[in-house]
């Protein structure tokens, strides 16, 4: 072999052909439809329909078809839809605030030992406190209404995002940091160009956890404070013993949860595409 630069031919020959590069190959299924899963769900509905039509004849366990027609007529009247709108809006606001504050404060704590030492005791005290325990306090302070709902959602979903961001920034591998430093990148550059991006997978995991916590919180607070939204709708229907409508409300909450996890999973695969965890679950 001569002194010409020649790793090229042999090296590239054994490698995958350089076509269709980029993220697409990594992304996995899109908002994937899982035919088998849907078939099973439909089958289950049919079985429940048959059971409730024959064996289980309690007035409190309506047939899925009755729930379905109740849902359609409620949608026609608009009551359930405005509840759905309130719930979604509070959910988005609460989660958005939590994400913004959680990422900024988590990153700040991760960047500075002094900040971490300062806030640590307060954080460790507040974190295990179940957020629903704060509802009475929040009602006194903020009154009954969407402000309390949003505040409680934000409070509860703040913690996973805060801690995941903190540990993500902290957990960056020494070699990643040293690489940047060896190229003369300074402290601030290392923070923004290495620590923050490498924390992204961990932040995404935090957001995924908080996305479900926020849904639990929004429904709970709406039920407890009776301040509108799907939670309140479900309680109203329960009190009025309109079981079909009540189940229609519950079904909608379940549907929101399902769609949220689809959307969050999809975003995660796109934004932190390099993360193995977020690619594990295939079609849903």
């Amino acid at each position: 072999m001569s002194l010409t630069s020649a790793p090229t031919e042999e090296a590239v020959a054994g490698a995958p052909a350089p076509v269709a590069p980029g993220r697409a190959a990594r992304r996995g299924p899109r908002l994937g439809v899982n035919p088998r899963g849907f078939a099973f769900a439909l089958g289950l509905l049919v079985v429940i329909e048959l059971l409730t039509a024959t064996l289980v004849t309690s007035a409190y366990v309506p047939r899925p078809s009755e729930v379905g027609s109740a849902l359609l007529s409620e949608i026609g009247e608009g009551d359930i839809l405005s509840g759905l709108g309130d719930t979604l809006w509070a959910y988005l606001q609460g989660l958005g605030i939590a994400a913004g504050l959680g990422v900024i404060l988590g990153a700040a704590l991760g960047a500075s030992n002094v900040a971490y030492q300062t806030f640590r005791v307060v954080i460790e005290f507040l974190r295990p406190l179940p957020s629903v325990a704060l509802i009475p306090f929040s009602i006194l302070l903020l009154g009954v209404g969407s402000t309390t709902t949003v505040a409680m959602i934000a409070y509860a979903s703040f913690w996973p995002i805060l801690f995941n961001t903190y540990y993500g920034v902290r957990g960056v591998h020494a070699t990643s940091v040293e690489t940047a430093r060896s190229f003369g990148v300074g402290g601030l550059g290392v923070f923004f160009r290495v620590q923050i991006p490498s924390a992204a997978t961990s932040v995404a995991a935090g957001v995924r956890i908080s996305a479900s916590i926020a849904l639990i919180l929004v429904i709970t607070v709406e039920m407890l404070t009776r301040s509108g939204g799907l939670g309140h709708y479900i309680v109203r229907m329960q009190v009025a013993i309109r079981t079909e409508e009540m189940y229609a409300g519950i079904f909608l909450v379940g549907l929101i949860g399902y769609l949220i996890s689809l959307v969050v999973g999809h975003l995660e695969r796109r934004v932190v595409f390099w993360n193995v965890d977020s690619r594990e679950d295939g079609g849903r």
Partner: protein
Amino acid sequence: MRRRAGERHVAGDGGDRTGILHVEELRKRYAPDTPLVCDGLSFNVNQGEFVAIIGPSGCGKSTLLRMIAGILSPTSGDVWVGGRRIDGPPPEMALVFQDYTRSLYPWLTVERNVRFPLAKRRDLDKAEKAERVAEAIRTVGLTGFEKYSPGQLSGGMQQRVAIARALAFQPQILLLDEPFASVDALTKEGLEDTLLDVRDRLGASGNTMLMVTHDIDEAIYLADRIVVLSKPPCVVAEELSVDLPVPRTQVESRSHPEFLRIRAYVHDVMGLTDQRRRTHGGPQPSA
């Protein structure tokens, strides 16, 4: 100053600090009450020289390179680069890390990884940066893979991305920590020649290279001089110059009598390191 293989190296004989790189009595202990990793390393690297460092696994080779690169501070001793004592990463140096998977950034494409050290440089315009990046990627034979992310490449390809990134930086001193450990034999030969090429192209003013390797043959083929480290805590067990004719070529150089002689000698030195340390009054191994 060149020594023939077989001549003794006198540890700590100083050397001049005016060389491009001078390592003086480096000691490293990672934490109190842990054993020393490096125990008084001294050697000198001249401008344009290719020096290979070999030593048994775990003897502190990576530790040494990280101290030279200014990202790990020694417990005692100094590193001098271009006549200046360093206390941080010197701007004329780049290090190719042994742990290339952690060293590449998975959120950046191959191209952006290679561009990373240039991204914030104000003295280069966009076109110059692009040219350097393309050139470096071409040099390691990864043209066509610019838009891949590191996770989509094989281990050997990732290692070549890391090398390309260091080349794009165009350092005066290139430090390499077992850069070819996970490429196949053919690619390895190609990359070895690429390194020699890069050096030739930059001429006498150009690249000083300091490379850690496990591979004695690779060290002889590439280097002008070989520094053999002892078992931990490591000291310089031996320094020898490689007087193989240039230009070196894989087949001819590796069958040259001088190559075979040095090879036998280095094997001997590495096998006898313990005994040599005893005869030369170094610290005794405890067990």
